[in-house]
Structure formats: C-alpha cells, structure tokens
C-alpha cells in the first residue's frame, strides 16, 4: 500500500505544496483578502463614530433588502473555484492517499508507524505492519498524536523575554551561544533533555561534548521507566537492559509491574502477553498471570490471581518470593520473617518453580532498584535468562535533574538549554525548580507548548523556540530492541518549529543544520539502503546484541539487606496512609494534557474522564468517612494538594493513588485546570511512593465525569467466562450461560434483510476475543481519529453525551459470599459501600454497534435514516436523520451517539450547561456578541470556534467520513469508508470482468480502524460468507456468543467468551469465575444436565 519514498526532502516551493490552512490551499477569497489587505482591520476604516454607525445601519438594511430581492437566485450555491496545479508533480493523483513509514519516539524506544497523508496533510497513524514481529498495533498515544499536530494551542512563535522574535534572531542567539561555548570550552553551558533513543541526537551530543568538553548533560523524566536498565546493570554488573518475552512465558509474576498498561512498550507487551492467552480448542493451554499490586491496573485486571497490598509491603512480598524461590532452587537465601499471605506466595512460587525456563518475574517501574535486582535474581534461579528475558547492550545515561538543580543553585550554570520537557510543572517539589532555573543567566528552551516552563523563563535573556511535531520534521530513533527506525515528516512545520537535533547542531556550530541532512549523515548507508530504510520504516539487522549475563551475588546480597533494613524501619512506622504516584493512562506525565481525545478517553480502570482523583479503597474510605466526590486535602510533610475522592474496587487498603499529569496551570484550551497536580507532593526522596500522608476532608464535593455507572453485571451473562477446567469439560459453556428466552413465535412481518442479504457480495461481521482484550482503550482513540468523532467536554460527558463510537465496558464481579445483595441493580453511588468490591474479579468488553441483523433501531426510525445494506451493515444516514433519537432509545446495547450540540464547531468552554448560548445570546470577553457586531459589523457573531482553531482542527479530519452536525445520530459503521474504498479499488482493478469480490486470501479485505490499532489482535473483522476467513473460523468456535442473544437481535458482532486460568492450589482460587457464580445465583447452574437447561433450548433460532 505504500508509495515509494520521495527522492529527497520535498521543498516548499517545488513539488508538493504544503499549506497551512484549507483556505490557503483553496485560495478562499477571505484568505486572499486577508493576505492582500494593506492595513490591519480598523486602521483604514472611517473612524467618525456617528456617521459610521449611520452608514452601517443603512448598509445592513440595504443588505437585508438585497438579500430578499435576490432570494430566487440566492438558492444557487456560492461560486467555488477549483485550482489545479500550475505544474503537475510526477506520480501524483489528486484524491488518493499516500502512505509513509515513520515512527513515534517514546522514552526508551519507538513505535514504528505508517502514516496516511491526504492532500499533503497527515490524517491517520497506523502501526507499521512490516516491522518485524509487529502486528500493526499501536498504543493510544500514537493514535492520538495526530491531534497534537493540529493543536491550536501549540507554541507558534519564537519568543525572547516574552516578546515575539524572528527565527533569524533566535538562530543568531544559538550561534552566539556556540561562539561563547567555543571560547570557554562549554563552561557554564548545561543541557536538560528528555529521554530518547535518537542516534542523531546522540551524535550531536557527542559532537558538542567533543567541541565543548565542559558542557554538562542532564536527563529528566518525571515518569522514570529507565529503572529496568539501571537495576539490570546493577544485578549483572554490566551495562544491559532487559527485554521481557511475555510470549515465551507460561507463568508470569508481576510485582507492581503494569507491563500491559503503563510500562515502556506496553503495546508490544500486550501483543506478546496475549499470544499466550489465545485459545481455539479445549486442549489449548493458557499462560497464567499472578499480580501483586497496590493500584488496580490493567495487569491486575487481566491477572488470574491478584494480591493487593500497600506499596510498602511489595518489597516484603518480593523478599518472601525471592527467599522461597532461591531456596527451592538450591541457592543460598536468608530467611525472611513470615509476611503477608504466605500461602499465596508459596503456592505461586511453586507454580513458578514448576515452569523453569518458561516463567517470568517482572517488577514495575515504581519499585526501587533493589526489588528489580531480586526479580532478576529470581529469573536467573528459574533459568529464565535467555528464554523469557533477554538482556541487550544499553548505554548509560547522563545525570538527573537533582544534579542539575545543585549545579544551578551553586551558580555554575550560565546558559541552560532545555530541550522538551516541562520541569517547572513536573520537577520534584523539593528542588524548588522555578527558583533554581532562575539562577541560570539565560534559559533557551525548545518547547511544544507555551507552558509553565515558558512562563517561568520570560526574562530578557530567555528564549523560547517552538518545537516541531514528529510528523513535521526529520528524525530517527531506536526501538527498545535497538532497531533503527526513521522519523519521516509528512508536512512542513506548520509554525516553523525546530527539532532537538537542529537546535543541537546549531549550538555545536555545525554547517549542516537541516534535520534531514543530519539524519541522513547519521544513517551512514548508501542511497539504495536509505530508500529501503524509508520505504520499510526500519533498518534490517540493526537490533541490539543479546548479551550473556550472570547474576552478581554481591548485588543481590546488598539489595537484600537494603530491602530488609527498609522493611524493619517501615515496621516501626505507625499506620499512615501511603501515596502511589502513577503515570496516567490518558495524559501520561502531563505531556498529553491538551489532547482532547485522550482527556475524554475513559480511564481503562476507573472509567473517569477529564480528571484525576484521589483513589482509595472502600475500607479506607469507610475508616475516613469518605464517599465518592468528597473533596479532601492530602498533606505530606508540609505540602498539600486537594482533590475529589474516588473509591476503586480492588484497591489496596491504607493507600492513595494519585495520577500524575493533571492540574496543569498553563496548558491550553483543553488541558488547563483539569484535575489536580500531584507533582506538588512528589519529592526526590519519594518519587513513586510516599508514606506518612494524612488526609483531611474539606467542605463540599467535586463531581467527576464517569462514563460507566454500573460496576456489576448483576448476574446477567453479558460477558461470559469460565475457568480452563470448565472450558475443557463444557466447551460450549458460553451457550449454556444464557438467559431464558421468550417463546419463539413466527414473526408476522418477515425481516426484509433475510432476502436482501442474498444480493450482497460479502457479508460483514466482527469477532471480539474477550480472552485477549485487556481493555487498554487504543481502539477507542483509533476510532475517534478515523471517524471524525468530536470531543464534548467534561460537562457533556457527565450528561451522558460522550461521542466515542466505541467504549470498553469494565465490570467487576464479587464473591457472593461476601455480603453481596445480588438482586438489586445498583449504580456506583451505592456500590461504592459494598464489601464485595474489595477483592473483585474484573472483565472488560469493547462495545460498539453490533450490526444486528434484526436491528431494533431500524424498526423505530420514522424517516428510515437507519437501514440495512445487503452486506449486513446497519447504516446510519446522516443527511436523512432528523434527530428523534428513537433508535437510541430502542438500542439494547446503547451504542448510538447523538449530537446534542454542534460539538465540532463549538468551543469547549461553551459546552457547559445547563444553559447553552446561541449565536444570539453568545458573549465574547464579557460583551454581548450582537452588540459587538453593532459596533463593528466585521466582527463575527457566531459563538463558534475561532477561525485559527477550526482551521487547524479540520485538518485532522478524515476526508472520507462526513463530519456530523448538531441534531444527527451517529454510531459505529464498521469503517464503512474503508469497506467501500476496498470494494471500489477491487472493482477498478476488475474493470470489465466479474472479479469484484474482496477476498481475505488475496489481502483485499480491509481492516477496521479499531482492528488495525489493537495490539492484542482481539478484534477481527471480515467476510462471514467466506468460510475460509479468519472471522468465520473464530465465529465457528464454541466460545462464540452474542450479547443479549435472548432478544433475537442476531448481531453480526459476536464475542468469544473469556477463559481464566486460575491455580487450584491458591488460597484465592474460585472454582468458577465470580461472574459465573453471580449468574448461577440468579439463573441456576448452567452446567447441570438435568431438565430443560438453557443449553438444550438450541443454539439456532428461527425468529424473524
């Protein structure tokens, strides 16, 4: 699908024309007027107030008359111009998409991507399926990156001391910096960088280090995922970093390691982990996951056994595990005092020991290095090294932010160059970073936003340079495994932004400063190799070497004694609250806080949007007398923050979970003032955990926007699951677990689709594997990007008006023996107090339009705006919809979304109820719009997004999908635009022949956006009338079932029931999953063969 790479970087004046707004490319009259206007508005107008107003009055009246008089011809559409090229570029066909391989750099790796470009603007990012081992899946941040590119709040200007400056002046400043460094050897020059793996940046750094040896380098990441490398280097006495092969592991123990949620390369870990969760037939085996954690994490939700403990207890659990495993492996291990849940630990250790070479122990990034050292020692004892965990060569990284703060406070830094990052916002609170930064004589900062760090550097000598997006400028990166990938731009910098490597090259005083040339020079190969590199999106054979390592016994011993002494110190502490600071699922460390898609994506676990919360367990909340939404103040030392309470099922007692990345003071229209800033409590000594917090209830409450009120399925078989044993005994368990069906009656009115489908060339369907879906939410963002889904803001989410076509439902199931009241449907306001939520099992389920063959929505539409096509798609015709919302009322799956307001064009701040402005009542800057218009008729009165904002945002829209307006219903179309395009492409290819059918064997069946983005491969779309297609085979499995099948809607989207793999020896073993127990409580045992069980009622129904 890819087009060949361009021969060189496209220049702005020749070849493809890059443009900065649609108005520019179409040369709209307004744009041209704006360009050609000699004086700014107001400068050349008549200024006499009385006669001017009079003139305006007459003019408005005459316009009105003219408008009425011309009403007849006014029906004609306004004249539009088509402007073809002056010079036709080669191999370019207007209206077709082009694809380029690129990559998004992460902290310690990169996500290889394939970017779709339409008319010179990137519109969608996909994973690079050519990448070795990749499946085309990405993470949610890569999917959302396109919105960052078109963020209207990006840094657009070069600024000196708070005032606009020219790029040339900025380049002069960098040259001057370079000259000065040359004279002093770099004395007083310090760089603060973010972590990244770019070989070009490394080369520039080396160049500068060679030229200015006294320059100093510091790296700061508020969420430090590099601890794996540091700990491995300690444990093995060599400079190495671990790569975990979750696909090779049969038994996995995670010590606070959320490897499928918040660790580096989570999407790749999901791919590997879910390979071991795939079952097709009862004889297949499953991997088993044990999780020990404080937070409820994605890993904990996917785990077969989960132990929740306070943060300070995790090292103790690690010690107990290490003692158990090292001892049983015949190694020398000191005794540890009996800790928490000894049976859990010893049985889990037994299971690990029973799988030498195919087990894995992994510690999370929040854990101290000593715990990681113990984990690696366990891996060594279990014979996993080289099998489920390999070690790669890895270079050491420069000093951290504490060293830099010291050096700043000592007055050793004359010029501080900050490339990326936002230290004023996220530096540890005890460093007093704003003050320290002010000690540098001059701060030169390259930033993507004019954020907190920009605000703190507005002195005359301070510079702020706008950073380029990765889709705007050349770069390179190494994936975690060391494979070189290109960062290829698809558009010229919209606002003239620079990249790190360009700034560094300028400081180095290099002649070559264009990023393309820097990257090209770093890539030493010839022209053919370079082209292949850009075409494929990776350089073959560049992966880092796997090195053989041996555990350093001294390192283990010292880790051991360190943890033991810490534990002893802990034991003496009184019963305090412990805080966990964690990376947020949506905004990461705060870098995505101005990304509306991510802000509005429900957190995979709490299902909260637009806020972080003080997360605690039911028991702790009860002890403190708190309930959801109560405002509390958390005090740690002499620092405080306040935020609303959220009671999280399965959260460890006596702990508080605080997500980082919120509470931005200066972000943008989306991110400013969302949530509270947990960095304020975070210090260098307690980066991830802090003990000794106190909590005080404040007056009042703060409402959070949660998109899922029901925590429990209440015994209904919406998600069906069984343990591996039941699956082996009753492979058809999903069919047995079924609600009673109403008696089948022959329909008076035959379903027209039954005959219509005979005409369809294909029959589309989808299968969702609940065994591999872990609920990460990447699909939600991919869908939002592909289908032009607007964001609606917190207030609208609270009113249930979120627009995402996909949602991932998350349910908890509790032990019915734990004081459960299963007969009453309850929402979170009641459920938060119930004991069963303490140790729940969790299940997730992506939910979107099920494309029912007998769709309840279609029967009730008075205008036939939702109908079926011959190929089984439930269509939504926007131009026919009049907005009665009957369809949504009648949809049992609640997957239809209604545009209550013009979400696309209204500014976010005007989306707050209960009273909404209209163009007539709207105010701007506290002044009534109509009054403003009266004073100045050129002033727009629309109350819609400002032009500069809308111009950028509309560039992110997919041209193949209608942008819906107010009053229109919408829902998942199974990416109809992709299906139609594939069909058209096949028909064009067929020409005058009958070869028009899309075939999976020929690779012509398209993938939906969610399917393409899913790192687990849990979503499979295809032609169910082709018996050889993957989706047909999946649907033929015994685990296949439809949600709410007792309603006879006959959905085309079906689910594969989940199979758990618990260990019978474990103390928290349940013979059947808790959700099944709930079902049994309500409906009776589905496995009982006697009598008329639901299973014997038959699988097929002939309901019309």
């Amino acid at each position, binding site marked *: 699908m890819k087009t060949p790479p361009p021969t060189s970087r496209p220049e702005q004046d020749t070849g493809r024309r890059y443009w900065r707004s649609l108005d520019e490319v179409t040369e709209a009259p307004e744009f041209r007027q704006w360009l050609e206007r000699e004086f700014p508005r107001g400068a050349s107008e008549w200024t006499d107030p009385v006669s001017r107003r009079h003139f305006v009055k007459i003019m408005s009246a005459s316009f009105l008359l003219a408008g009425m008089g011309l009403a007849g011809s006014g029906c004609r559409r306004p004249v539009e111009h088509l*402007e073809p090229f002056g010079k036709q570029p080669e191999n370019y066909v207007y*209206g077709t998409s082009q694809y380029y391989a690129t990559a998004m750099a992460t902290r310690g790796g990169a996500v290889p991507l394939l970017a779709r470009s339409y008319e010179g603007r990137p519109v969608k990012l996909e994973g690079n399926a050519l990448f070795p081992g990749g499946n085309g899946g990405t993470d949610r941040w890569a999917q959302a990156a396109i919105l960052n590119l078109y963020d209207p709040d990006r840094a657009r200007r070069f600024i000196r001391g708070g005032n606009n400056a020219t790029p040339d002046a900025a380049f002069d400043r960098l040259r001057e910096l370079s000259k000065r460094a040359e004279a002093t050897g770099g004395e007083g020059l310090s760089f603060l960088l973010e972590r990244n793996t770019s070989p070009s940046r490394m080369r520039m750094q080396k160049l500068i280090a060679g030229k200015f040896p006294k320059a100093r380098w510091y790296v700061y990441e508020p969420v430090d995922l590099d601890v794996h490398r540091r700990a491995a280097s300690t444990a093995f006495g060599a400079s190495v970093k671990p790569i975990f092969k979750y696909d090779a592991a049969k038994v996995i123990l995670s010590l606070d390691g959320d490897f499928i949620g918040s660790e580096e390369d989570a999407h790749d870990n999901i791919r590997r982990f879910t390979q071991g969760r795939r079952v097709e037939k009862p004889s297949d085996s499953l991997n088993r996951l044990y999780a020990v954690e404080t937070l409820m994490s994605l890993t904990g939700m996917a785990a077969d056994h989960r132990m929740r403990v306070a943060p300070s207890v995790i090292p103790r659990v690690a010690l107990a595990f290490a003692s158990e495993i090292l001892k049983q492996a015949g190694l020398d291990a000191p005794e540890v005092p009996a800790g928490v849940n000894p049976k859990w630990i010893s049985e889990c250790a037994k299971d690990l020991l029973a799988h030498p070479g195919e087990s894995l122990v992994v510690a999370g990034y929040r854990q101290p290095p000593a715990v990681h050292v113990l984990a690696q020692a366990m891996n060594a004892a279990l014979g996993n090294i080289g099998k489920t965990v390999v070690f790669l060569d890895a270079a050491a990284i420069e000093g951290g932010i504490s060293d830099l703060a010291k050096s700043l406070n000592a007055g050793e830094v004359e010029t501080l160059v900050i490339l990326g990052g936002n230290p004023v916002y996220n530096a540890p609170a005890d460093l007093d970073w704003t003050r320290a930064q002010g000690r540098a004589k001059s701060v030169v900062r390259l930033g993507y936003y004019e954020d907190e760090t920009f605000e703190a550097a507005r002195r005359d000598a301070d510079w702020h340079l706008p950073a380029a997006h990765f889709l705007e400028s050349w770069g390179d990166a190494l994936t975690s495994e060391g494979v070189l990938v290109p960062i290829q731009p698809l558009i010229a910098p919209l606002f003239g932004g620079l990249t790190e490597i360009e700034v560094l090259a300028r400081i180095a005083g290099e002649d070559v400063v264009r990023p393309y040339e820097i990257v090209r020079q770093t890539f030493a190969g010839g022209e053919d190799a370079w082209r292949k590199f850009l075409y494929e999106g990776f350089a073959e054979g560049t992966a880092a070497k796997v090195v053989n390592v041996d555990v350093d016994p001294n390192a283990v011993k010292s880790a051991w004694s360190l943890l033991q002494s810490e534990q002893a110190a802990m034991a003496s502490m009184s019963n305090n609250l412990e805080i966990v600071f964690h990376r947020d699922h949506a905004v990461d460390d705060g870098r995505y806080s101005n990304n509306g898609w991510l802000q509005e994506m429900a957190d995979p676990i709490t299902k909260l949007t637009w806020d972080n919360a003080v997360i605690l367990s039911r028991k702790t909340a009860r002890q403190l007398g708190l309930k959801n939404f109560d405002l509390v103040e958390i005090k740690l030392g002499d620092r405080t923050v306040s935020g609303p309470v959220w009671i999280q099922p399965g959260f460890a007692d006596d702990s508080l979970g605080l997500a980082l990345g919120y509470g931005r003071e200066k972000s943008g229209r989306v991110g400013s003032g969302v949530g509270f800033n947990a960095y304020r409590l975070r210090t260098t000594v307690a980066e991830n955990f802090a003990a000794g917090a106190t909590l005080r209830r404040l007056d009042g409450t703060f409402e959070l926007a949660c998109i899922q009120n029901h925590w429990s399925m209440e015994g209904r078989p919406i998600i069906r699951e069984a343990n591996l044993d039941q699956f082996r005994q009753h492979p058809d368990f999903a069919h047995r677990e079924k609600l009673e069906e109403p008696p089948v009656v022959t329909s008076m009115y035959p379903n027209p689709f039954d005959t219509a489908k005979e005409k369809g060339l294909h029959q589309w369907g989808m299968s969702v594997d609940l065994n591999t879906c872990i609920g990460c939410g990447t699909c939600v963002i991919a869908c939002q990007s592909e289908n032009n889904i607007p964001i609606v803001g917190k207030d609208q989410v609270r009113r249930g008006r979120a627009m995402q076509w996909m949602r991932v439902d998350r349910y908890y199931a509790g032990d019915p023996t734990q004081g459960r009241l299963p007969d009453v449907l309850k929402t979170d306001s009641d459920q938060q107090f119930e004991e069963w939520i303490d140790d729940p099992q969790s299940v997730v389920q992506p939910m979107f339009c099920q494309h029912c063959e007998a769709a309840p929505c279609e029967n009730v539409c008075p205008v036939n705006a939702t109908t079926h096509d011959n190929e089984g798609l439930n269509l939504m*015709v926007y131009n026919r919809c009049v907005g009665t919302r009957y369809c949504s009322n009648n949809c049992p799956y609640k997957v239809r979304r209604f545009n209550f307001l013009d979400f696309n064009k209204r500014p976010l701040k005007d989306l707050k109820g209960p009273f909404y402005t209209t163009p007539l009542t709207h105010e701007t800057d506290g002044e009534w719009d109509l009054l403003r218009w009266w004073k100045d008729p050129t002033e727009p009165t629309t109350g819609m997004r400002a032009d500069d904002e809308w111009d950028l945002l509309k560039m992110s829209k997919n041209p193949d999908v209608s942008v819906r307006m107010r009053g229109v219903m919408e829902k998942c179309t199974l990416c109809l635009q992709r299906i139609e395009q594939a069909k058209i492409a096949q028909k064009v290819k067929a020409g005058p022949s009958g070869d028009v059918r899309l075939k999976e064997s020929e690779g012509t069946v398209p993938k939906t956006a969610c399917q393409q983005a899913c790192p687990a491969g849990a979503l499979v779309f295809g032609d169910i009338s082709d018996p050889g297609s993957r989706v047909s085979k999946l649907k033929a499995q015994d685990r296949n079932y439809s949600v709410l099948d007792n309603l006879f809607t006959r959905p085309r989207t079906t689910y594969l029931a989940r199979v758990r793999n618990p260990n019978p020896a474990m103390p928290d073993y349940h013979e059947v999953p808790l959700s099944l127990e709930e079902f049994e409580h309500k409906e009776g045992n589905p496995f009982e063969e006697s009598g008329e069980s639901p299973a014997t009622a038959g699988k097929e129904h002939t309901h019309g």
Partner: protein
Amino acid sequence: MIIAGLFLVGGAVTAGVWYYFTPKYTRVGYQPIQPVTFSHATHAGQLGIDCRYCHTGVEKSWFSNIPASSTCMNCHNQVLKDDPRLELVRESAQSGKPIPWVQIHKLPDFVYFNHSVHVNRGVSCVECHGRIDQMDEVYHAQPLSMSFCLECHRHPELKLRPEDKITDLAWRPASAAQQLEFGRRAMVEWKVESLQTCSACHR
C-alpha cells in the same frame, strides 16, 4: 374565502418551491464564465483529444482532476504559443500559480461519488456531464440530484456500454433492444450490482 385563498396561495407557493427549487431547475444550465476561454468543442470534439489526456485522475481517483497548466503547455508551447487568450495559462505554468477555474459540478459533502469506479465499469462521462465535446463553454447538463443518480443505479443495464466507448461521447447503441441485451449481459458478466443501499454513496 380569505382562508381558502390563503390555503390556495400557500399551496401554490409550496408546490412551486417543491417543484422548481430542485437541482433540475437550479443547477441544470449553470454556465459560469471561466477565467480562460477554453473550448471543449474544439479540443475534445474537433481535435478528438481523449478526455483522459487532461483528466488523468479519472480512472484512478474519486476525483476527476482539472489538468495542471503545464498539461496545456504540452501542446501550446508549439501551437498558438503567443495567443493572448492563453496568457493566463502561460503565466500559471511559469509561476506555478493555479488558474481559478469556476466549479460547475459539485455534489454535497455527504455524497461520496467516485469517478474511477464508474468509468472503469462501463459508465460513460456523457451520462452525467452531457455532450461536453459539443460545448464551447461547459454547462451543467444534468441535475445530479439523488433521483438522477438512483435512476441509473436502479437500472444500470440501460446505461452500461462497452469499455472502449466510455470516453466516446457520441457513441449510441444501435437500438434500445441491443442496449438492453448488452447491459443485461454486462451486469451478469461484470457482476455489476444495482446498488441502492445508502452505503453506496453516504458515509
């Protein structure tokens, strides 16, 4: 009487709007003045240049492109190379600045018409655009309304033609019976669907 009169007048206005405010009346015949006096009658009719020489994207893209000025210059750097009527074209080809042609055929944004799939599968340009090869200044020949599209989508056999006659705007089937025979056979052999579901055009 007054009420009845009002009803009558109201009814007449409604009926008038209903009937006359349709693309059949508001669009057909639209013939704006173009910035360059380009004659399709001369180029396509008299000289017999194939449509696809200039509209290169029509077989590959949803959009049938208007040629770049450099395409005009392929011939006009030899033919009529100093003609004052071509001043704008020469200037545009030189500078790369586009010529602002006035758009004539335009479908609403929620309609996804695709040129390539029609011209590759037996539908001629003439069905929607009329006898362009006889127009000096192009005008809107057909209503291009939804009912117009559906007429053909309901009975493709009446419009399908041999693939080598797609850009031959003057071609006519020998007889209605022959057309029907060819069209029906083509529908079977080429597996042409009579697409009337909404998804065919609306996404």
